[in-house]
Structures are given as C-alpha cells and as structure tokens.
C-alpha cells in the first residue's frame, strides 16, 4: 500500500488578533503560531494506521517555504517514510485549482494506491484541493471521509460524513484521493526526540523546473480565481457586549435569562 498525504502548515488564528497586511490581500503572519493543518494531522495519522495494517510506505508532500520542513519532519516522526517540499516564488498566489495542479505534477511520477488530504484547511478553507487533484490525476475520490473500513482487491469501502450525523458508505476503486475529516482517529503524540531522530532525513525539494511547469501555469497567472482584497466581516447588528465588573456582567446575564430564558 503506497500512500501519499498532502499537508499544509497553517497559522493558528482562532485565538489570535489578526491584522490585514499592506497588500490588502492577506493577513500579517508574523507573530502567529504555525502548526500542521488540523484536518491534515488526522490524514497523516490515518495513513500511518493504514501502513501499520497493510504495510507499504507513506510519503508526505507540502507546498511552502523552508519553515514547512518542520511540519514535514513532524509527519516523518509520526511514521511517514519520505517527505517532499514544493517551493518556488512562482507558486505565490495560487488558488485551490493551481495548488492541486502543482501537487499533481509532483505526484505523477510516484507510485501510489491512496492519496489522503484534509477536508479543508484552517486558513483558506477551500475544501477543493483533494477532489481537484483526483480529477487532474484521473483517479477516483471521496470527500469528507470519516471512516475507512478496509481495502481489498484494489477497492476500498469508506464512510462519507453527510449532514446531521448521517453517513453514506461508498465502495471505491483504487487509486483514489480521500479527503479526511477530523475525528476519524486519534492522532498520536510526536515527541521532540522523535523529531530529532528524523532531523537528518532528506526532504526532497522541488521547484517549478523540477515539476516541469511553466511560470504562467502557476501562481496567479495559472489560477482561475484571484484574490482581490480582504476585509473584516461586517459586524451587522452584532452582539450587545456586556461590560462592567464580573459581578455586574453576571447580574446582566441573570436579568437576560429572566426576561428571555423561561428560567423560573
């Protein structure tokens, strides 16, 4: 079983103050803590569980600058066997389609039975790269997979998560791309010693040329959608923020609950 996992290093923003940068098309990334995209962490774990069950090898691929090595090393420490980083100034500004395009160029020469990605990323949230990659490679896919039942004679049975707790079971021909949903497993802890042990492992770095792509096929020129500008969502009516000391705030909540809450 040869498995490829596409992962991304993303800034954590749930808890952070974010600031729009000078280009007006992105946010300031300095000062933010980066980590593997939550969905991708589950995808790496799933790949390793599959390898432990069926044998074979796991290759992780990520696009981005040198810092991405840290994320790739973490995946190696989890149990991946090879890591590839795709980097080129020309990739800047790629949309979901073009990201998939670049990934596909790196994946084409490899042999694989399964490709896993996260359902979406915490930053751009396209939810598009995995299936697009499948279409470019001309293979099958399933999005929002929350269980892989098993793999047998070139096919796999997977559960796709639908809305409201409903799932559907699919039977898919391999090779296939599966986009992995959170909660599918419990990602293991990666120790610093574990990361140090793989510190010397080679990370293959590929750029535009190695991927046999032309500059106009990547980044903004190669993309079908272009970010024009970013802004903070209008607050609309928004919430009435309760102010005061903790006691005063609590009193206000009690009043609200008495008025609206049907609490006796």
């Amino acid at each position, binding site marked *: 079983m040869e498995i490829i996992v596409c992962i991304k290093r993303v800034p*954590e923003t749930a*808890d*952070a103050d974010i600031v729009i940068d000078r280009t007006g098309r992105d946010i300031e990334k300095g*000062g933010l*803590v980066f*980590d593997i995209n939550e969905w991708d962490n589950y995808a790496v774990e799933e790949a390793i569980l599959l390898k432990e069950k069926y044998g074979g090898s796991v290759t992780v691929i990520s696009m981005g600058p040198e810092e991405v090595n840290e994320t790739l090393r973490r995946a190696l420490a*989890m149990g991946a066997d090879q890591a590839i980083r795709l980097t080129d100034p020309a990739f800047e500004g790629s949309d979901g389609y073009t990201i998939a395009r670049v990934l596909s160029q790196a994946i084409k020469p490899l042999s694989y039975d399964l490709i896993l990605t996260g359902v979406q990323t915490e930053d751009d949230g396209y939810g598009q790269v995995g299936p697009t990659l499948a279409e470019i490679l001309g293979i099958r896919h399933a999005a929002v997979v929350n269980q892989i039942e098993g793999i047998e004679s070139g096919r796999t049975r997977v559960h796709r998560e639908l809305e409201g707790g409903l799932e559907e079971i699919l039977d898919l021909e391999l090779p296939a791309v599966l986009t992995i949903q959170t909660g599918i497993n*419990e990602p*293991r*802890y*990666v*120790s*610093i*010693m*574990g*990361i*140090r042990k793989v510190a010397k492992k080679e990370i293959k770095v590929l750029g535009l040329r190695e991927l046999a792509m032309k500059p106009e096929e990547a980044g903004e020129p190669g993309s079908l959608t272009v970010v024009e500008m970013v802004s903070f969502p209008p607050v609309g009516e928004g919430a009435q923020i309760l102010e005061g000391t903790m006691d005063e705030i609590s009193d206000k909540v009690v009043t609200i609950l008495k008025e609206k809450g049907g609490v006796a």
Partner: protein
Amino acid sequence: MEVQKEGFLQKYDLYGCFQCGKCTGGCPVSLKSKLNIRKLMIEALLRDNLGNVVQREELWDCTTCKTCTLRCPRGLEPMDLLIGMRTLLVEEGHIPKTAIEALESTYKYGNPWGAAKNKRSEWANELGLKVLPQGDQASNLYFVCCTAAYDTRVQNVARSLVQCLRQIGYDFAILGNDETCCGSEIRRMGEEGLFEMLMDQNIESFNKYDFRSIVTTSPHCYNTIKNDYAQDGLDVRHYTQVLAEAVEEKNPFSGEVRKVITYHDPCFLGKQNGIFDEPRYILQSIAGVTFIDFDRSREKSLCCEGGGGRMWVEATDQGPRLAEIRVQDAVEMGAEILATACPFCLLTLEDAVKTTGNEERLRVMDISEILVEAL
C-alpha cells in the same frame, strides 16, 4: 514495542536493587494504585520484553514526589526508572490524551495551559514591573511560572508575591513574554526532548542579562532550574528562602493575622530540597498566628498528587484523593488556614476543600497571600 534493555539496566543500576521494598513502602499512591515501584524495579531487570512492563496505565499515577528514591538504602533512583519508562512511552506516542494537549501546548506556546505566548505577562499589566527584555535592569530575576502567569487563581499568588518582594525592598525584574515553561513537569511526564528544548531556551534568556539570583514562585521551577539545569553560577532560590531571610533581618510585615494556620510541605520544596524551616519561620513570625503542624509533616509529608504531570493526567486509581485526606486532617486539627508555597499544591488542596465540602471551615492560601494580609 522494542526496548534496548541493556542500557536500561545500567542507567538505573537495576542489579543493585535488593528488593527491600522501602520504596513502595513510602510511595503515597501505592496504597490505592496498582503502581508498585519495587516490582517495577525487578520486572525491568528480569522480563525479557521491557515493552510489556512499560505499557501500563498506572505508570501515569506516579506524582514524582521522589519519596522512593530518597528512601532507597542503596542510593538507587526508582523514580528516574519510572520517568525513563514514561520517556519510552512518549517516544512511541503512547500517552494519555490530556497529557498530549499539555505537551503540544508547551511546544507551541511555551506553557502547558494552552494559553497564548504573548499573554504570558498579562497578569502583571498594572503592576509596573521591570522587564528585562524591555531594557530594564535589576539585581534579581523573578521567574514567574506558567501556572502563576495564566491560572486565574494562582495569578493572585504572583501578585501577592510581588507585593511581598517590594515590601522587603527586593530589586527584581521579570522576563515578560520571553519566559518559557521551566520543563519540570514536562521532563517528569517523560518528554525529555521537549524538556531540553525548554531548558536551552531559558538558559539562553538567563545568559542575556545580568542578575544575581533567580527567585521562583513554584518549587517545581526552583527544583528543576537548580537540579536539572544545574548550571554553574546560576543562583536560584525559592521565594520562601528570600522572604524568610528578610523577615529574620527586620520583619516588615507588621500586621496581625489572628488565625490558626497549618502548613503543607510541597514535595518539591521539602522532601526534595530540604526547605522545611523557612516557610514555617515566616508563618510563625506573623503576629497573631497560631501555628500547628500536621502529624505527617516535613520528610513524612503527604503528597498532594499535583506533581509529575498529574495536573494533566487523571489517575487510574479509585481511592480517596490524598489532597482530600490532607484537608480532612487540617480541619480535624482545627486549622482555619491551610498554607502552602506551591501553585500545584494550592490548586489541588483548594479543589479538595470544595469536594469535601469544607469551604466554610478551611481556606487554602499561599504563604505570600497570608503575608499580604499582614501588611
């Protein structure tokens, strides 16, 4: 799970153990947990496959209070064997989920509480403290501790301590957001690599600035900087040492506290570092205080179960929590205040006051907080 056994035998000198059982006899959790440290020593020696010995849930019950090691007549280190076993588990990724959260948070944000790094010094916002990385200078460095920096209850200890230190005219500064977790609990949870990383980061910060000594809120930071970092020329002191010295010279805490107070020895301060007298001296020097000691005090003190990563791992045992026993004992003795000098003891004991329904009878306070009442 494969384990290189030879190295293990030598590292922990397992051939030296003659199975006297003093370790288990002194172990505070052995009565209620399957954890048996004497058996662990012999099994590690005799079993072919260490992997099976190591993969036991009860390994996480140990609070690393170090009683076993301190009592070993052969000078062996059973606690380190246990931590060594945890290290194997951590490297394999087999650790309790809640511990994973704490470790990942420490790696990313430099604290086990999942709080943002740039909010580390928020507790001191209105205090006007000197901050070394902002160019301030001071004779001493106050090492705050993650728990004192982020836990809303323990923040009060840090603020009280600042008041006390100012009262004695102690010149100090903090590292602000550059302070990172000391790694004490991280190492004891078996994450040796992360511990080394944290140690290196802190030592690098220490080396950047000129100061005489480091004073800590927590006995855990104190112990680890003093004994685990073990850097020549690094003078580190627990705050009770600094305050006791000042009180002895000329007591600036002249107010009265009319209360019956007992004191719980934190394992990392008392047993592990022999600091028994200073906290008692401070408490007894406060006017109006009636001081009574626990039956089980000093070397015999009962562990609160807050150490060794237990703040983040639920124990497998079902028995009564030791902190609850401690609180019951204090109430029975007639104490009104249960004093301690450790953030973890404070949190576990205070929780035990609630679970035993003693909120009306007993208050748990840090020594620095009691001193502030005596200002």
